[in-house]
């Protein structure tokens, strides 16, 4: 276990290093200039600007400096957003994104698990079919389409919730629903299959035989065992929430990381793009590692070191 962990963590840092390097060199060959008014500036002034941000040095020097700073947690200074250090800029925006992601994750899995349970208990009835239909919709419909339509019909037309911004709990409800549609779909599908599997096993038959009530069987015996494998989908779900946050935050004008990322792309703010990319990548690899370790703890049958069948 210890050896496996060490290997995985080493791999994690290697991946992050590769991502940081790729991002750096890609940023160097991107066409376009980071300075908003570059066309109007006289060449001398442009040189001064470049010198200020260290862009006049040869690329290998810039690269070494960048990696050095990165190791110390310094992600550079934003070109566009009032010369704020990138880490400050991102730190400020981490809160809303984290809250939104956590809410969507919790809400999504709870609703999804409930849907899956009801579908499995009432297999091949209208309950099952409508749960399956919701799952198909949630998996297939792109989240920005869903978020856009939700905003238009619920917030603009019906006026039940605020349309934009991030000023209190009622502002978080629609974005949370928009973001949680994918977790709902995936966990409902997964839960249904697992529950049907468990409900067919011998110990459920025994519970029935000893006269346990329907709900006792469903909750005490079946649910517990069906919930365990759900951990396996939590990783991919968390990652999908990261992708989703980009568009959902844009639609609802939420001051989060995703919105920052989209904005910095449109204005060519290299340090912010690089910083956000590395942060996203770091979250990504950490989530994958944590989920892999969780599998091993929860289900010892899954061999940690192998990983391939």
């Amino acid at each position: 276990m210890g050896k496996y962990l060490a290997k995985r963590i080493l791999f994690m840092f290697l991946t992050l290093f590769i991502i940081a390097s790729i991002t750096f060199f890609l940023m160097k060959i991107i066409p376009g200039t980071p300075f908003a008014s570059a066309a109007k500036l006289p060449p001398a002034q442009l040189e001064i600007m470049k010198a200020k941000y260290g862009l006049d040095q040869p690329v290998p020097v810039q690269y070494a400096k960048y990696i050095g700073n990165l190791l110390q947690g310094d992600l550079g200074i934003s070109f566009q957003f009032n010369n704020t250090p990138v880490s400050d800029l991102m730190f400020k925006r981490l809160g809303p994104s984290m809250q939104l992601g956590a809410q969507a994750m919790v809400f999504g899995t709870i609703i999804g698990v409930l849907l899956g349970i009801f579908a499995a208990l009432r297999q091949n009835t209208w309950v099952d079919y409508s749960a399956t239909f919701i799952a198909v919709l949630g998996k297939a419909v792109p989240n920005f389409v869903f978020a856009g339509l939700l905003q238009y019909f619920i917030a603009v037309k019906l006026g039940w919730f605020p349309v934009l911004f991030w000023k209190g709990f009622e502002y978080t409800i629609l974005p949370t629903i928009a973001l949680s549609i994918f977790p709902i779909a995936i966990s409902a599908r997964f839960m249904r299959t697992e529950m049907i599997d468990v409900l067919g096993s011998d110990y459920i038959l025994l519970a029935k035989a000893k006269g346990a009530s329907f709900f006792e069987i469903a909750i005490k015996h079946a649910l517990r065992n069906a919930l365990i494998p759900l951990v396996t989908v939590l990783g991919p779900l968390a990652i999908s929430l990261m992708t989703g946050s980009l568009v959902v935050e844009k639609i609802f004008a939420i001051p989060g990381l995703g919105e920052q990322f989209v904005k910095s792309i449109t204005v060519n703010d290299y340090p912010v793009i690089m910083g956000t990319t590395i942060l996203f990548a770091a979250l990504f690899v950490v989530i994958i590692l944590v989920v892999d370790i969780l599998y091993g703890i929860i289900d010892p049958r899954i061999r940690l070191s192998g990983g391939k069948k």
Partner: protein
Amino acid sequence: MANLETKISKDRFQPAIIDSAKSEEINKPSLTFWQDAWMRVRKNKGALASLIVMVLLVLMAFIGPLISGKEFDTQKVSHNNLPPRIQGLENISWLPFDGVKVNKAGKEINMYEVKKVDEYYWFGTDALGRDLFTRTWKGTQISLYIALLAALIDMIIGVIYGAVSGYYGGRLDNVMQRITEVLVGIPTMIVVILMILVLQPGIISITVALTITGWVGMARVVRAQVLKLKEQEFVLASKTLGNSDGKIISKHLLPNLAGVIIINTMFTIPSAIFFEAFLSFIGLGLQDPLASLGTLIDEGFKVLRLHPHEMIIPAVIISIIMITFNMLADGLRDALDPKMRD
């Protein structure tokens, strides 16, 4: 028991004739793998309905731009932002095809009368007065084209990579596996966005960006299958007969992999459609006047409150495409590989 004996007389019972020549006879026609799979897909109503809807959509993607009688990039600013109006359907009041728009005060106005337009725009027009019916189907065409091309490239790279890695094994496999491990560790979203930033949006660059990490999934599945298959007797037999590695892979292993490859490709297509639309939505899509479903949704979203039809129509089409592809892929998976059922 005694009752029964009295009711049925004994002479009605006869010993069955056992013909040993016929005992080995096969009554049902033997089915090939594909006939069997098709039978199972046909039983799955959702998958079959999806297939029909999908065929209709693909047909419309090609026929649509031709039958509207308008070009997808012709601008007519005097006809801008018109709501949809369709001949025949315009008189049915509950359908949204009467060219009527509700303004901010809640009053219904027939925009066609206000702007004195005699033409019919079936899906309305956009901010530059371009016909949305033509643009929507043209966009569907381009979205499907990007997705199919990306899926095809993913398939080719993934199958070759996975087959070589799995078949040869040893050190080569080890090196190739380390490469895929690193690639899997990089989030697709970030690679795709960075690649588009470098390459500049266009049909080819979006396709390339989608395939950079897209093939890894296919490669892993193919490798796992090849590892299993290559130990089987028919491969050994082929080797004994002196066939080359290339021939064994292409003649013996690949046909056995067809099911897995098809399933995987069917799941790649909707995810490619999604990523293309996703890129458009965050401002990295195709450039005007080209349209894809993603750019149409992005443009429509900007004016959603004033002219909802401009986003809702392409949004509905992309959703239908995604749903049908997903359902057909599920159906195919169940039909081709019952072990993979979830």
